[in-house]
């Protein structure tokens, strides 16, 4: 399938302030996580993707077409915004139904579509209550229902898990994965990395208006080879291993933990190759466990943001 989003030298300025700076990126089908700290440019990117903002420079195509001032694209897109804003006096069903009607469907079809979407987010019991009486988690879910109701190909979810309790969070993550399995593409933003990690390995890392990295966790790992890569090695003779490691200039630092040595290397591929040889030879004792905290998204993110 072709790319869901394609940007070419996309920039957005707010007066003198740069919101997004020369971003050329493609987002494939499936779930993609947009990660970045507050103020990184996530919201600007989301608003450009949803056609709320016009690019200052460059282009953005969503599902193969420009999105700015192209309303028919919104048949194919569902957007769940971050802001906690509603028509508070309406019930959940009235609100979702009214918004679906803007897609040109009849009132009865809109009610049916809204009800199905509300069922999908597990909010049926509260759908006749006024939104003003909803909890934060329920408000998040009704926002997702309005994004989902017209059955779009592409869902854009801005901080969708914000305010949900752990159980609902888990359910929502499962839902998002289900939607992806059913063929929808999903762009989901968050500044909490483990949330994204639990949904997808395919991420865009954004900071200071620039995409720092894109791809899956391991591809990103390759992209950041110039940053220290940490390897945890549990072994019989950690000190002997450390002495061996220090003879190579790619090893930047090391420290000891209980029966283990933690190494930072600038060239992980070379380091892993040597380590495999050492483990195979057994010359410095048995190596029991090798893990890389860098494979955790959090570590990758920290590296990139620091850079």
């Amino acid at each position, binding site marked *: 399938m072709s790319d869901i989003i394609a940007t070419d030298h996309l920039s957005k300025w707010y007066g003198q302030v740069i919101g997004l700076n020369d971003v050329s990126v493609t987002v494939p089908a499936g779930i993609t996580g947009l990660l970045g700290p507050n103020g990184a440019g996530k919201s600007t990117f989301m608003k450009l993707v949803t056609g709320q903002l016009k690019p200052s420079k460059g282009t953005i195509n969503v599902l193969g077409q420009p999105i700015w001032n192209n309303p028919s694209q919104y048949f194919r897109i569902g957007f769940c915004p971050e802001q906690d804003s509603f028509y508070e006096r309406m019930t959940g069903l009235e609100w979702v139904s009214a*918004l679906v009607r*803007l897609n040109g469907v009849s009132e009865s079809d809109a009610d049916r579509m809204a009800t199905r979407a509300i069922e999908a987010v597990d909010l049926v019991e509260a759908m006749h209550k006024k939104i003003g009486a909803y909890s934060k988690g329920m408000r998040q879910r009704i926002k997702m229902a309005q994004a989902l109701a017209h059955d779009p190909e592409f869902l854009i979810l801005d901080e969708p898990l914000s305010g949900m309790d752990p159980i609902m969070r888990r359910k929502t993550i499962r839902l998002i994965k289900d939607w992806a399995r059913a063929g929808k593409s999903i762009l989901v933003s968050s500044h909490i990395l483990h949330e994204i990690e639990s949904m997808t390995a395919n991420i865009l890392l954004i900071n200071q208006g620039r995409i720092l990295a894109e791809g899956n966790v391991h591809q990103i790992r390759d992209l950041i080879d110039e940053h220290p890569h940490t390897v945890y090695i549990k072994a019989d003779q950690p000190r002997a291993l450390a002495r061996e490691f220090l003879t190579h200039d790619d090893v930047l630092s090391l420290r000891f933990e209980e029966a283990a040595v933690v190494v930072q290397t600038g060239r992980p591929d070379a380091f892993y190759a040597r380590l495999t040889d050492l483990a195979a030879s057994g010359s410095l004792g048995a190596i029991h466990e090798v893990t890389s905290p860098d494979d955790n998204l959090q570590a990758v993110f920290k590296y990139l943001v620091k850079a």
Partner: protein
Amino acid sequence: MTEVAPRTPHTAPRTVSSAFRIFDLSLGQMLWSRRSVFLGVLLGGPVALAVALRVISAMYTSGFRINGAMTPGSTIFGMMIWLLYIRFIVPILGVFYGTSLIADEVDDKTITYLFTRPIPRRAVLIGKYLAYLVCTILLVLPSVMLVFFLVVPTGGSTVAEAFPPLLADFAMLAIGLAAYGALFAFVGTRLKRPLIIGLVFAFGWEPAVLLFPGYLKRLTVAYYLQALVKHEMPQDSAVSMLLQVFREVPSVGASLAGLAVIVGLTLWAAGRAVESREYILEQ
């Protein structure tokens, strides 16, 4: 996964049908807004005045006298329509609702839901403008009716005689609301500090230029509206005679054409502004 609805058609709805759906969505919100409650109270002002006039008329006189001349209730009603409703309440309603048609959605951060639906952005403006018209007519109508029934029967007028002009008054009020609403919708979408600009226009610029001869008065809404006023006004005071000298009233046809141009042009320009403008919501 729970089954979702079948796909909707991918042909963008037309502006008119989209506008009616926005109207449907917005009318209830607008009617029960704090603004409507406040302006509803404001519209109680003429009613309170009418009650007072009725009580005074019943208790102390058998009618109203202006400069010593007996003035029928229908004339008093006509003066109230012009001075209170057309020159004060209608512009106030136009300013407060018209400038906020889009701004309210932006302030409430609900504009996102409307602008990420497959409808032209100008349909949002037009739908909300239609909702404004219906909402304000529903606010004004009961007030005018009450004033009519309280004031007209005094001083020898009869309700039956005055009823046909009342329908014309309603039409004029609706046209006034349409014109001021469209003008201030344009101000609201194009200019910063639209409320202040609107108030200055309605209560500074318009009264000032209407007093003087020349073409400037054609740049007001009131100039065109005054041709639609059918009520007789008392003309025996020095001020009214002086005003009469400078009063250049266009024909009804010219007035209606002028007002239609104001509505059409300003709504078109406001729609263009909404189409091209980026609304950046504060986080």
